[in-house]
């Protein structure tokens, strides 16, 4: 297990290195125009422009700039946001937990809904559950996320007037109930977006397991049907379900970014979209780093869970 984990962490770090390097190089090519966004007026002399470039270190070769950025990151310094004029870490600090709350809630409900429905669909093929699962699978990939958000606001907030549409708090109110009422709509769009894949994966993983002989063995032992289905069926299918969640995680974060933007939820996803639009390169890199870390940490956690769930991985 230790070796297995060590490998996973190492590969996660490597992945992180590549993602940040690729993005750094990409973003460097628009850094010049970023300078214009900052300066704005266009009245500077060539000398002023050059000194600004030097102040940002733009005269150095690309790889060295990346190395410097990496060195600073390892020291805990993400640089200053062009746009906000305060350290990137501070900007992200304010926006980080709302995102975790939103994604955590959305994904938890997707699991709580998707796994039982997928299980029932596999247990009773061609039942209502099975049809429900195909419906959600279809909507899961055929309905663009932003359409889900807009449709949800239109239906639940405007037509039914159940919950507020945007923001994280009503102005001047700081209460748990208020937070929850603002959370419901964006979180349920994330649930809606993620649940289709989860149902599909649960269904097919369970279908595979339900054909296995060890379910017959469990029944032949005299276990109750519930024990057979949960302890032997679902329990064994959990590992592939987790894998699916791992694969979907980046897409869920991407979807959360769109949801955050539409619902005015102050998270890192909407921050990233703003940062890209404003060509705020240090901020974009900072958020990239945070999102990549978030995704990879979740994946390592899921990897550990996978190892605990399937002994064959643990001893490999």
């Amino acid at each position, binding site marked *: 297990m230790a070796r297995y984990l060590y490998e996973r962490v190492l590969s996660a770090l490597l992945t992180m290195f590549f993602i940040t390097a690729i993005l750094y190089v990409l973003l460097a090519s628009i850094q010049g125009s970023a300078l214009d966004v900052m300066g704005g007026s266009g009245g500077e002399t060539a000398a002023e422009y050059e000194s600004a470039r030097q102040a940002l270190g733009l005269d150095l070769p690309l790889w060295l700039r990346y190395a410097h950025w990496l060195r600073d990151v390892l020291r805990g310094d993400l640089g200053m946001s062009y746009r906000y004029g305060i350290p990137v870490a501070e900007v992200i600090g304010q926006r980080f937990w709302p995102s975790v709350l939103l994604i955590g809630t959305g994904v938890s409900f997707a699991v709580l809904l998707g796994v039982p429905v997928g299980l029932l669909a596999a247990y009773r093929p061609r039942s209502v559950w099975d049809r429900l699962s195909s419906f959600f699978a279809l909507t899961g990939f055929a309905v663009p996320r932003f359409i889900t958000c807009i449709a949800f606001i239109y239906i639940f907030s405007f037509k039914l007037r159940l919950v507020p549409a945007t923001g994280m708090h009503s102005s001047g109110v700081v209460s748990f109930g208020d937070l929850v009422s603002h959370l419901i709509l964006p979180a349920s769009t994330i649930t809606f977006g993620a649940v289709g894949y989860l149902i599909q994966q649960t269904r097919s993983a369970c279908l595979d397991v339900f054909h296995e002989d060890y379910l017959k063995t469990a029944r032949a032992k005299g276990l109750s049907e519930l024990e057979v289905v949960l302890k032997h069926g679902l329990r064994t299918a959990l590992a592939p379900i987790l894998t699916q969640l791992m694969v979907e995680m980046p897409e869920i974060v991407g979807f959360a970014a769109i949801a955050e933007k539409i619902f005015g939820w102050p998270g890192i996803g909407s921050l990233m979209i703003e940062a*890209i639009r404003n060509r705020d390169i240090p901020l974009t890199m900072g958020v990239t780093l945070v999102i990549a870390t978030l995704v990879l940490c979740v994946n390592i956690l899921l990897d550990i869970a996978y190892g605990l769930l399937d002994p064959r991985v643990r001893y490999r």
Partner: protein
Amino acid sequence: MKKFRKSRSGMIGLCFLIVEALSVALLPAIFHMDPVSSDVQAGFLAAPSAAHLLGTDGAARDLLARTLCGGRVSLLVGVAAPFISVTLGLPLGLAAGYYRGPAETIIMRACDVFMSFPSILLSLILVSVIGPSLGALIGVIGVMGWTSVAKLVYASVLSIREKEYIDSAVSIGRTDFEILRREILPGVSSPVLVALSLRAGSAILQESGLSFLGAGIRPPQASWGGIIYAAQDLSVLTRMPWVWAPSGILIVLTIVAFHFVGEGLRDALDPKMKL
């Protein structure tokens, strides 16, 4: 193809796509619709009327014309981007699966790197680096799709390799190129064909998302995502569903249609294929 005709949803999807393609290609020209100029007399964000069957948008442009022209963008991206994905993903997947070793490690690692970051954010950065245009959109979405094609091809090459006829081909002295072309390529062609139509759906999904975020087709050019962008204004969203609902429904239907075609193809070619 006979088998494909038996798939009812596949045929419905195909018919829908053909009708849609013909309408977006021909109708604007036949009825001299103008998606760009404003009809100030009709008003901004006007409700549907005889003059403007779907109403007008925030710049008083005819929404029916814009919706049809937006369809051109979506269908074009849906058809063109997957070909780029396959052009990139097919050789890489073949190389990874056939040669194994370092090629496999590097290519599959690269896949993991790409897949561990939200593709919508990555595309957003790419488009803002290149500058928004139809070409950039197709290129970026096509490039971003290489991973799923490569993984698919890689997996099917591995399963073909298992079979013994490859060994016998090696033993009679065929070159790698011959084996790839004669033995392996035919085996991966059906998954790739299915992937093409399934990728089309997700390309349209991404295009609409990027256009919605303002990183795709820029106004005055029309696109479905761009039309729906107007719904970010709360009063448009809540009181003027005619602005965004038709494009939204068309996006969903188009993606579903591509998906049905893909599934129909899969069932016709190899029902056990896993995608």
